[in-house]
């Protein structure tokens, strides 16, 4: 089972906080990979919050193709964080040419585009790069979005982090999500590494998604370009979140109703029974049915955690005003926020969605039996 850790803090933190928390939970993952999602960035990125940042791994040839491509569509490099890796590669980590984190200036023609169109185009660029990379196997692209950096690599999390020198001061973020991978049924492929990202939303999961194939078929047949990939059965959680918020235009509170709907008796007793019954019927193929803990991040920088219908996975949230964290295990939380009131730690159960809002002041819990907030 993979180990998950996410933290949201008023002051920008180094990703090492998360990596160290993963390291104390080392027994739960086999060090077959690590994934990092950083948002609400500090350091040099503080000044360029609107500039889309491309994160990925490139060969030298891939980088040339990238430059030509971006130039062609009018993107100018605004800032880049160069990760120069030492010659000696630690065991278990593949040798790469370039770990890219590069912020761009939008093309002039994009000025004044409505937000939705801008987001659509950013997705298109990322998908195009991904396709190009898959063709020649010279680029892997994780995200292309303002104020978001993603890093993924195969190997033990702490080893990888030290190797890439992730403690560098340019790399600071207020929201960090990290996953230590336990490789199970799918071959190691960086596109199979959590967290997954689509149009500003990210999530990571542990557990096996037993309903993966029907869910993948359902998402892939929605006619939305971004619903591709699925090298990991957990990628669908991110896409279902996207589908719930974007296509169904529902709030985060509805996400759990989509993936783990209430049973019929509980729906009948719910104030939003009619809506929930329709949601359960029409989104039936999106029911996850597996043992999963999902941690995700929304556009407004909220972090959330939900559990499967039977609560078969561990997961805890705790912290203090200004800094909260989600962790697979309490020891991860202890490592990252030792100075918290442990009595207030909370382990969400089968009906709960827990949310730490962008203000990072408190843990908000909503139960599936609560009335849904009015549609946003």
């Amino acid at each position, binding site marked *: 089972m993979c180990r998950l850790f996410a933290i949201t803090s008023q002051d920008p933190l180094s990703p090492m906080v998360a990596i160290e928390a993963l390291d104390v939970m080392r027994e739960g993952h086999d060090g077959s990979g690590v994934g990092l999602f950083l948002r609400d960035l500090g350091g040099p990125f503080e000044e360029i919050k609107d500039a889309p940042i491309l994160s990925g791994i490139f060969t030298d040839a891939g980088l040339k193709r990238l430059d030509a491509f971006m130039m062609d569509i009018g993107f100018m490099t605004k800032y880049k964080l160069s990760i120069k890796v030492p010659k000696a590669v630690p065991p278990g980590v593949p040798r790469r040419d370039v770990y890219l984190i590069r912020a761009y200036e939008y093309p002039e023609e994009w000025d004044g585009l409505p937000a939705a169109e801008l987001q659509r185009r950013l997705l298109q660029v990322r998908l195009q790069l991904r396709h190009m990379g898959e063709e020649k196997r010279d680029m892997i692209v994780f995200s292309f979005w303002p104020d978001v950096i993603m890093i993924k690599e195969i190997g033990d999390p702490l080893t990888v982090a030290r190797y890439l020198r992730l403690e560098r001061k340019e790399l600071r973020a207020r929201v960090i999500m990290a996953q230590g991978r336990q490789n199970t049924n799918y071959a190691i492929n960086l596109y199979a590494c959590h967290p997954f990202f689509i149009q500003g939303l990210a999530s990571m999961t542990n557990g*096996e998604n*037993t309903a993966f194939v*029907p869910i993948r078929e359902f998402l892939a047949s*929605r006619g939305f370009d971004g619903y591709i990939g699925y090298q990991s059965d957990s990628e669908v959680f991110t896409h279902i979140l996207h589908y719930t918020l974007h296509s169904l235009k529902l709030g985060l509170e509805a996400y759990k109703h989509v993936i783990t709907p209430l049973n*019929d008796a509980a729906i009948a007793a719910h104030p939003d029974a009619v*809506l929930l019954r329709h949601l359960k019927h*029409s989104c039936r193929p999106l029911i996850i*049915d597996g043992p999963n803990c999902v941690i995700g991040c929304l556009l407004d920088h909220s972090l959330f955690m939900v559990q499967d*219908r*039977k609560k078969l996975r561990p997961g805890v949230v705790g912290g203090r005003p200004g800094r909260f964290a989600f962790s697979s295990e309490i020891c991860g939380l202890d490592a990252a926020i030792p100075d918290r009131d442990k009595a207030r730690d909370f382990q969400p159960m089968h009906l709960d969605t827990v949310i730490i809002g962008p203000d990072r002041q408190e843990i908000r819990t909503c139960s599936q039996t609560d009335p849904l907030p009015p549609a946003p």
Partner: protein
Amino acid sequence: MLADRPITPSTLSLKDLPWQIVWDREKCTLCGRCTAVCPVQAIELGVFRKRSVVPSLDPQRPPANSFATYYGIRQKTDPACRCVGCATCTLVCPNDAILPVHSDEADKLRFHINAGGQPRNRGGRRNVPGSILDRIKFTRISMLTDPALDAGRHEFELRTLLGRVLPPEKNLQFLRENGWIPPVREIYPLIIGGMSFGALSPNMWEALQLGVAYLNEELGIPVRICTGEGGCPPRLLRSRFLKYVILQIASGYFGWDEIIHAIPEMKEDPCAIEIKYGQGAKPGDGGLLMWYKVNRLIAAIRGVPAGVSLPSPPTHQTQYSIEESVAKMILSMSMAWGFRVPVYPKISGTSTAMAVLNNLTRNPYAAGLAIDGEDGGTGAAYNVSMDHMGHPIASNIRDGYKTLVELGQQNEIPLFAGGGIGKSGNLAANAAALIMLGASGVQVGKSIMQAAAGCVGSESDRCNICNIGQCPKGITSQDPRLYRRLDVDAVAQRLVDTVLSFDTELKKIVAPLGRSTSLPIGMADAIGIDDAHAAGRLDIRFVV
């Protein structure tokens, strides 16, 4: 056979018959129960001659003969009275003196059951044992990667949907805007398939209805039952139990006068309306209730004269094109109940099923599609239709599901699979395999008759005389002397037992696959088969 009797081409010996009666003179008490009970008069009282040689040790007295006669059971060889192997004689014999045994080679009778140019007509099923469904294994077991679920203790919701489900966006939009949202029923994935009042005896019908009502009201298992084409008893139409019933309309429209007239008095809407265009056992053929079974009660419910055979036409007379007339029929039926009742067609398995399905995807009122495969059963049909016509259900369902996936409508039009599910006794495993191939549920007939009422019919041509009204178990007979053999309460109880054990077995299958809160429709990654060609055709894993 007497020496002076002529031999004709159709003169058969006992050896030429499919079933031979073995009778034990030692045990027989000559009570006559077997001859009285035989549904086809295959056996009769026989007078046998016995010559015994009486040797003598006395040279003065030569050996002598003694002549005697005795009484016993004689099996007829006339094709019209051939033994069908039902073993009712065995059942009633107080001394176990009589038993039908199956011939050790293919019978010669089959070449002669066409006297007068009339091909063989019978009831039952396709006389081919076994099914590809029995070979599908559930191979994706969650173990160390995840805790498996506990079939005994975890919460399970094994429900399916019958009705047109809108795509989520549209559903929510219509909900906001008060648009028409098609009716959808949450039902159990096991449906008792269309067996008509007429084909079944009144006791059998009542027992099934009773069992279904009990399952729903006492056990909370929403099993539904389809009427088949024969109308519905007036009191049921006006009762609250109608909500558990799927009314079938077929090309003969039998009973629909009564149904339409009852609409204003209905307390509940029926679960759904099934428009039968075809039946797996006899594709391209209409329904058939032979005259033996059309008594006054049946005639009254169907709105026809008694004592005449009731064939329904092969197709609906109004049907000239699927685009218009099927759509019109679905619409008329929807309209009759104010668009509150799902209406779906049932077709026989066919290589053209995808054309029908494609058409339904464009018809917003179509609530689903039921496909009845070649192993479906029937009360009466030509042998050739039963044995040689039709399409296997597995590939039809798989193709249907994949077609829907391509269109993104896999959750919108539920497919229901019928035909031979549980024919080898593996009801839950067959049903689960079809669900994972893409069916939303299964329709079961014969298997329920066997389990709940003790039907003795089989794929080795045992019994299968449902057409002539002489069912030895009283299941498919309209003769009160026969159907009184069927204890209504006992059959209802057996139905409940059967469904409960199905439910447990289904959980035992889906729990280790890590599924519990939604039916694993289309979860084809969970199954495999030991035949590479079948695996390729069904797009599932080849496992050896």
